């Protein structure tokens, strides 16, 4: 079972990669790992609230990370939608911890 600290580290890793729009491929892979870890956490009743937040993040990430190559022109708008969803998930994780 992943720990909250591990999930928070993974949130930070997504943010770190997002600094460079050329790293879209890395971001996608890190987002997938984060969502998998959160899915593991959400099996526990006290973390059920993060499921909705993860679903939202999953949906948002689908468009910005496809195709997997970098796409600066679409990145700014895409990240502006993912970033608040990531903030929301981070807040939920921190609160649960």
């Amino acid at each position: 079972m992943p720990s909250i600290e591990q999930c928070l580290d993974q949130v930070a890793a997504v943010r770190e990669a997002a600094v460079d729009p050329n790293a879209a491929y890395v971001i996608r892979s890190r987002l997938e790992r984060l969502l998998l870890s959160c899915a593991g956490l959400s099996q526990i009743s006290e973390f059920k609230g993060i499921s909705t937040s993860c679903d939202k993040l999953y949906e948002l990430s689908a468009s910005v990370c496809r195709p997997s190559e970098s796409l600066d022109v679409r990145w700014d708008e895409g990240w502006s939608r993912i970033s608040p969803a990531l903030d929301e998930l981070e807040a939920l994780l921190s609160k649960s911890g």
Partner: protein
Amino acid sequence: MALRHGTSVWLYGSFARGDADELSDIDILVAGGDGEWRDAVSQDPQLAWLELSGHAFSPMQFSWGELEAMCAYGSLFLHHVKLEGRAVTPEENDPLEQLLAGLPRYRRATDEMQAFTVVLQDVAKSLRGDHSPNFEMAVVATALRHAFILGCYVTGQPDFGRASPFETLSATLRLSPETVDELQTLYGFRLHQQGRSDLPFDATTQDVVTSTERAATLFQDIQRRVDAFDRAMP
């Protein structure tokens, strides 16, 4: 400012290549339009039949401005569409066909290889904490497939197939048929993740370590081809 107008709808991906399976989506590129692709695909008998057979459309919509920006760096995605795609509603002076006709060579191959290497480093790091070996195998497999697609492209044998790039590049990298089989089996972890196949086997952490090391070696080989490609760039 985009210089092109109108909408082009193109089919690409597994149905354009002819290696689709019952779970394949119908990949379409909608260039320049906003929600107008439904009319175009409904007039194409093959696509209409595929939709009736239960296949879902997976549209990628881009404005002409976005497409021209992608064209400027020789987008590999656009090379993919150019190689295997076809216009759903063919017409003279199709603006996408005109754009693709002037598509330059891909300019981000080295950046992309660096991204694949970072992904391998992430896998190695993930093994230090709680992790899913099957998930990490899928991550390695996906990066390997994309690196092989890139390797095929830079060596002049473009192949955007699901698992065929492993075979296509094998002669260049002097890989044995057994190694190609192992790479295709490894890609089964990604296909399993997408619900397209059974799990090849239940991976252990050691399997992930072995696959990551092999991928790192193959990336070095492919990087040499990318370097040669970049050196030959006009």
